[in-house]
């Protein structure tokens, strides 16, 4: 019986790879749009907060180096989230494009998994592009090879958290409410994720420190700070990774449930 089952699995993986190839193909053909979508926001944040405010003397010299890991975290989380959320709302809501993939010979879970994997890939590309851009704008970026494993772990978990949020939002939000996604979800996530300030320094603003502790992105920012600028006070890396792992489990399980609800009546 191993023969037919192995063959069946090969068919399913082939379908999975074909769908991934479709997504990569479309991204490749729309590369400038993709880059504009993922880079512009962190680029401006980096330029204004890291360069302009510093040059005008409103921030201290090391602020740019403190900001940079936070912006990497922001890019990792938001890119993954956007890659999933908006297309999903549209595909389930009005273009119905996803139907052809749901009818491909693979488990429904594979369709969701492909979306997550694709979101991770886009998130990695967007984050890595930020490195040369950082050098270009700031002159130098904080970098420690000894922090590299933590850097990678933070990025991967950050992208997964973003993908989890995206899956959740993409299957939860009704198409006519897509505007609310921006104002009620993206903006708060963007500003409470500790990308522009280190979390321990919020001691003086206790209530806000509590609020930011509830945003999983905070732990992405803090883990990347731990990896790149450990001299800045930050949350212990093991706490960051643990919280992120738990957040990913919760977001993914609820998101996948939502995906099934939308995929099968």
């Amino acid at each position: 019986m191993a023969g037919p089952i192995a063959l069946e699995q090969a068919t399913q993986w082939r379908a999975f790879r074909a769908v991934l190839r479709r997504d990569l193909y479309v991204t490749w053909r729309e590369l400038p749009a993709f880059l504009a979508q993922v880079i512009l926001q962190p680029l401006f944040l980096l330029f204004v907060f890291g360069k302009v405010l510093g040059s005008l003397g409103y921030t201290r010299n090391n602020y740019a180096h403190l900001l940079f890991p936070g912006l990497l975290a922001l890019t990792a989380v938001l890119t993954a989230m956007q890659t999933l959320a908006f297309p999903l709302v549209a595909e389930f809501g009005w273009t119905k494009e996803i139907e052809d993939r749901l009818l491909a010979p693979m488990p429904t879970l594979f369709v969701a998994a492909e979306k997550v994997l694709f979101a991770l890939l886009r998130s990695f590309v967007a984050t890595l592009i930020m490195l040369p851009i950082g050098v270009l704008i700031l002159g130098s970026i904080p970098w420690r090879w000894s922090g590299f494993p933590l850097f990678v772990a933070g990025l991967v978990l950050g992208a997964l958290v973003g993908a989890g949020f995206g899956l959740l939002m993409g299957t939860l939000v009704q198409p006519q409410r897509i505007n609310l996604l921006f104002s009620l979800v993206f903006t708060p996530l963007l500003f409470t994720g500790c990308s522009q300030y280190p979390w321990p320094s919020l001691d003086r603003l206790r209530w806000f420190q509590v609020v930011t502790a509830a945003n999983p992105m905070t732990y992405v920012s803090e883990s990347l700070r731990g990896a790149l600028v450990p001299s800045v006070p930050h949350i212990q890396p093991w706490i960051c990774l643990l919280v992120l792992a738990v957040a990913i489990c919760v977001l993914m399980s609820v998101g996948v449930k939502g995906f099934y609800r939308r995929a099968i009546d």
Partner: protein
Amino acid sequence: MPKVHPRPYDFEVLPRNDAGHAVEVVDLVKRYPKAPVNAVDGVSFGVAAGEVFGLLGPNGAGKTTTVGMLTTRVRPTGGRALVGGIDVMRDPVRARRQVAVVPQRSNLDRSLSIRDNLVFHAAYHGVPARERERRAAELLDQFGLLDRAGDKPDFFSGGQGQRVMIARALMHAPQVLFLDEPTTGLDPAARLFVWDRLRELRDSEVTLILTTHDMDEAAFLADRVAIMDHGRLLALDTPAALIGGLEGEGTLELAADGSADGAVVDALAALTGVERVETVHLQAENGAEAPPPAAQPLRVRLYLTGDAALHVAPAAAVLADHGLALQDVKLGTPTLEDVFIHLTGRTLR
């Protein structure tokens, strides 16, 4: 209230030939969460390999839900559904390899060209690269899409989109092709084109199951027609046999200028050559309330043994005796529409 005949025909749920069943449905039930009634309510039928099978019924009859269950997108509440011998509930992944779906509304991939829509669909289904290019070229040609193969589907008309979706569905050589209202909303020329392509498919191996609320479409395309209403199968046979099951050779539909009681109907039924009289009621449609049946102007259909034209004058006389004037007359031979009216007492639309 006209009488609804639950099973007026002693219909066979399985096809007579022994070519093997492409689709087998046994006591299929679907109830959506929080819905008061079953959307599909114990439906059974079989479709032979290579057959063209029509599910005919008004909107909301349960046709699309039935197709949804057979194509693994809707989870049945009860019963069994097999496609190509595979249980769609137990093994949805393998079932998906057997089927292709052309939905009511376009679900083409808007980021891909028409050719890429076809090619990627085949790739999802594991068709080898060279084979998918060859098949795409062939189908694009067959469906008159070669000159637009590089265009994205955004600006396609309904008819063109429908052609692309049928071509796409055939890319992985499915055993069973489901078409949900394939020509609804198409202009006459586009509809004829689609009909012609579907007629061509009859001669191929593929089994077609199409839902429609258009009796002409069902009669023109389908080998056998199942009539559905309120989630149930009311009749199932060849169009000819369904129509032949009605008494009479001709029909005469009369509309009067006012409402009437049963006495008029009885008087009409008493005329020589009249086999049966049915009262036709207007349906509420598009949110507009239909008046209660008793208040509606009289509209009846007479099933006749002889030539319909000979019965117009006597029928008009009966109406005049009851103080009614004849407003509209339709002569005809019975159609699937008459079968539906006979079964439900309502018109299809």
